[in-house]
């Protein structure tokens, strides 16, 4: 019996509840201590995923839409069991509620790799499921939304369907077996039909059995197919609403600046000139900085520049030399954790050092939120990956009780981990308090967004290894980075216990079986704000681990793709490499071009990527890219393809030209001209192949990123003979 079965027995008490004019379907919590998310609507302890009322069927998506298509797939899970007409499906983001906890996220946080399905790992993961509930982690991240919702959403759909059929049977006097459902209606044998909406109130009174059987995958009509995304029309006609688009009567516009040395204080400021700027209205102090408020965002940005300010100097003037010295010192010292230990390492013939710089999220929509404090009640509109925490932080900043906060989760103009942070939420709530009862829109400038990020840590690694008989005979990877968890714990006010598993993420769980294999994680001094960045530790460790393997293949005189495949122990991983070789026509490359391969097993998904490059008079051009990945079960191929290729572009951008650097405690980059994501002309055609080994279902928002950097670096080696061990690559080669 798999883990899903255990969860179903233990905690899915399926139920329904009547609400005004309709009914909600979902499931009751394992213990009923969690506050009900739609209080006041008569829902008891139900966690609702489906609402049916006079206007039709609405799916409540418990996860946030930041571009990854999760609303579409979560809705499809419900629609599949409930026989809805896809074009009529509506999706709403659920309210912040602990009942929408994400058990999958915390499960992956335990120090066992997802590859490890052994008894110990399973028990630990299951044990983590209960605390996750009580912590109330409603989080979108870690590629967990689909694994978490795969059962819950389908069960909610199935139970709703059953209740509607029972209601229809009662009303018509027919037996249930004679009734069918299709297109949002119950069909009677004589050709007549009843809409779900008209049955809703009666369905709420139906006695429900244990969880119904879910449909087998070979009976799926929607799942497994590429569906039109529910947000696509609104994102093509300008009507999709992001937090920065919220407009309220009498709204004022604000922008902020904090001490450019992260964490250092504001000493004093003089706002005289700023207030004299046409349309300027207020300059207000905030934590470590201030806000300018004006009649337009532009006037606020202009006024902000006119504020005379004196910043405190940072305790330590962090710069690149210090960051490198910290990382070296960590590697020279004892490891804080060991992810792999087998055999022993002695007298290696190959030794190399690799490094990567800090990275910014640079979401296309800079941070911001709308907020309105009126009569002791706060309304807040924001795109957030962590709504339960955001609600609590907003309440604190505005000085109201959490139940006086109404939180609206908007579409996010990119998340990538940045919108799990609370700084912009706190700022907007503080501004609403200072300006009450006037509503305020906070919009960060791109410069503020670049300077005040929580960065992907800089990292460094040493590899010591040998080859014998065409294979790796020993391999030691020592990887070092600052601690995201330590940084986060400081910001969120929780204790950081034990080793930080993100430092080793992607380094220890690669599916190889070298006879002597050691992977150690070293924690470096954490001096600048660090955060989760798409694929987290995998993003640097894939570069270290996989580039070293590529070098060893060369040393052993074996084709690099075969070299990896032959030493793997995990069949789906071998199969994605085979698939990548096939779709990229690996063996045959046009003259003047070369291919490189990258592989990483992350978030339970093996992904192989191939990049082809060409030397041109303008520099190196990327002429093709191929991705093969296996998420276990593929629910929506079009969304998966978009996420994998988008994830690869994200990884390639960083590898080619992404670097956040520090000087005198400040970030040196300020806008897209000096932190420039890949542009359209640089983007190669990308071919994606999705494999389905049928294992446990996995999320796909992140696994496309890690193999990109090694694939490109290895391709550049194949083309030029030059091994580049330090990112970004454009410090060593020119790109066209």
């Amino acid at each position, binding site marked *: 019996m798999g883990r899903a079965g255990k969860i179903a027995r233990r905690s899915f008490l399926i139920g329904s509840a009547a609400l005004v004019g309709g009914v909600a379907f979902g499931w009751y919590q394992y213990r009923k201590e969690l506050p009900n998310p739609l209080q006041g609507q008569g829902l008891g302890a139900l966690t609702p995923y489906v609402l049916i009322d006079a206007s039709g069927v609405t799916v409540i998506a418990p996860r946030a839409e*930041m*571009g*990854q*298509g999760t609303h579409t797939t979560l809705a499809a899970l419900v629609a599949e069991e409930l026989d809805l007409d896809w074009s009529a499906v509506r999706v709403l983001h659920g309210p912040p509620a602990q009942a929408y906890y994400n058990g999958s996220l915390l499960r992956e946080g335990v120090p066992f790799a997802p590859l490890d399905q052994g008894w110990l790992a399973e028990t630990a993961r299951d044990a983590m499921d209960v605390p996750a509930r009580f912590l109330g982690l409603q989080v979108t991240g870690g590629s967990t939304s689909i694994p978490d919702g795969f059962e819950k959403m389908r069960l909610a759909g199935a139970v709703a369907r059953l209740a509607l059929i029972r209601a229809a049977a009662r009303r018509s006097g027919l037996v249930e077996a004679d009734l069918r459902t299709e297109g949002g209606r119950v069909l009677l044998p004589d050709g007549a039909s009843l809409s779900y909406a008209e049955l809703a109130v009666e369905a709420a009174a139906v006695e429900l059995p244990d969880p119904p059987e879910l449909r087998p995958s070979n009976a799926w009509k929607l799942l497994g197919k590429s569906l*039109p*995304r529910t*947000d*696509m*029309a*609104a*994102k*093509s*006609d*300008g*009507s999709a*609403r*992001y937090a*920065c*688009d919220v*407009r309220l009567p009498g709204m004022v*516009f604000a922008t902020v600046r904090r001490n450019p040395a992260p964490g250092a204080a504001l000493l004093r400021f003089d706002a005289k000139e700023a207030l004299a700027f*046409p*349309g300027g209205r207020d300059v207000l102090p905030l934590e470590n900085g201030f806000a300018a408020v004006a*009649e*337009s*965002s*532009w*006037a606020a*940005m202009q006024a902000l520049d006119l504020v005379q300010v004196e910043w405190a100097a940072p305790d330590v003037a962090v710069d690149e030399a210090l960051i490198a010295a910290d990382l070296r010192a960590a590697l020279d010292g004892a490891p804080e954790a060991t992810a792999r230990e087998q055999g022993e390492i002695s007298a290696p013939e190959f030794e190399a050092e690799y490094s990567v710089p800090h990275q910014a999220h*640079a*979401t*296309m*929509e*800079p941070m911001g939120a709308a907020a309105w404090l009126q009569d002791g009640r706060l309304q807040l509109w924001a795109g957030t990956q962590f709504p339960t925490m955001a609600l609590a932080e907003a309440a604190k900043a505005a000085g109201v009780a959490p139940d006086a906060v109404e939180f609206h989760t908007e*579409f*996010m*103009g*990119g998340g*990538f981990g940045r919108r799990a942070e609370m700084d912009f939420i706190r700022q907007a709530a503080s501004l609403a308090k200072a300006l009450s009862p006037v509503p305020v829109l906070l*919009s960060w*400038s*791109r410069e503020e967004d670049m300077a005040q990020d929580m960065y992907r840590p800089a990292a460094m690694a040493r590899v010591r290894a040998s080859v014998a008989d065409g294979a790796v005979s020993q391999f030691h990877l020592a990887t070092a980075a600052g601690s995201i968890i330590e940084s986060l714990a400081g910001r969120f006010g929780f204790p950081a216990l034990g080793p930080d598993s993100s430092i080793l993420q992607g380094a220890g769980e690669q599916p190889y079986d070298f006879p002597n294999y050691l992977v150690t994680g070293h924690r470096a001094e954490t001096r600048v704000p660090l955060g989760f960045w798409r694929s987290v530790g995998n993003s640097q460790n894939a570069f270290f681990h996989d580039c070293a393997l590529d070098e060893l293949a060369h040393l052993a005189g074996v084709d690099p793709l075969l070299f990896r495949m032959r030493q793997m122990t995990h069949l789906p991983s071998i199969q994605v490499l085979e698939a990548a070789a096939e779709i990229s026509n690996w063996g045959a490359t046009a003259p003047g071009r070369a291919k490189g391969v990258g592989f990483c097993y992350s978030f339970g998904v093996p992904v192989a990527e191939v990049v082809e490059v060409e030397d041109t008079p303008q520099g190196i051009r990327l002429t093709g890219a191929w991705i093969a990945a296996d998420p276990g079960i593929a629910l929506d191929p*079009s969304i998966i393809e*978009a996420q994998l*290729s*988008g*994830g690869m*572009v*994200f990884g390639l*951008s960083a590898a080619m030209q992404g670097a956040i650097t520090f000087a005198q405690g400040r970030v040196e980059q300020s*806008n*897209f*001209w000096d932190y420039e*994501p*890949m*542009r*359209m*002309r640089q*983007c190669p*055609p990308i071919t994606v192949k999705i494999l389905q080994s049928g294992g446990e279902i996995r999320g796909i928002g992140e696994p496309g990123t890690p193999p990109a950097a090694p694939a490109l670096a290895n391709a550049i080696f194949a083309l030029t003979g030059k091994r580049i061990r330090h990112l970004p690559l454009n410090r060593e080669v020119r790109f066209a």
Partner: protein
Amino acid sequence: MITLAVNGQTLSTELPPETPLLWVLRDGLGLTGTKYGCGVAACGACTVLVEGEAVRSCQLPVGEVNGAVTTIEGLAGAEGLHPLQKAWVAEQVAQCGYCQSGQIMQAAGLLMANPQPSDAEILEAMDGNLCRCGAYPRILAAIKAASAAMAG
């Protein structure tokens, strides 16, 4: 007070003439489909058409606008969505969607000037429009599909 022709309507704003068109649209007129991404002509999220030509509205003071402005909200005609918007839906281009108004308006300007662009011409015209989600392959496919559809 400044009056402007936007999406076939005459609208007016009290915001000062130095205010970039972007912020007049977004904060003054409530037309929020046009987005801010950088403010320095480096991302294209703010692209609109002025007299059929794609321009970066973050760089254009509203007092210097000479001609009719079309934003994403005004791109659809009496016959419904613009062929580019239809192609965007058909190709399922958007991810987070934040850059897409600017992408579509830039492409609209391109097709107006050059209804049958080559791949190289598309890449050149679109190079100033960043997409952090990396939707580039589908943006290219959608522009080609729209161009073919418009040729009938």
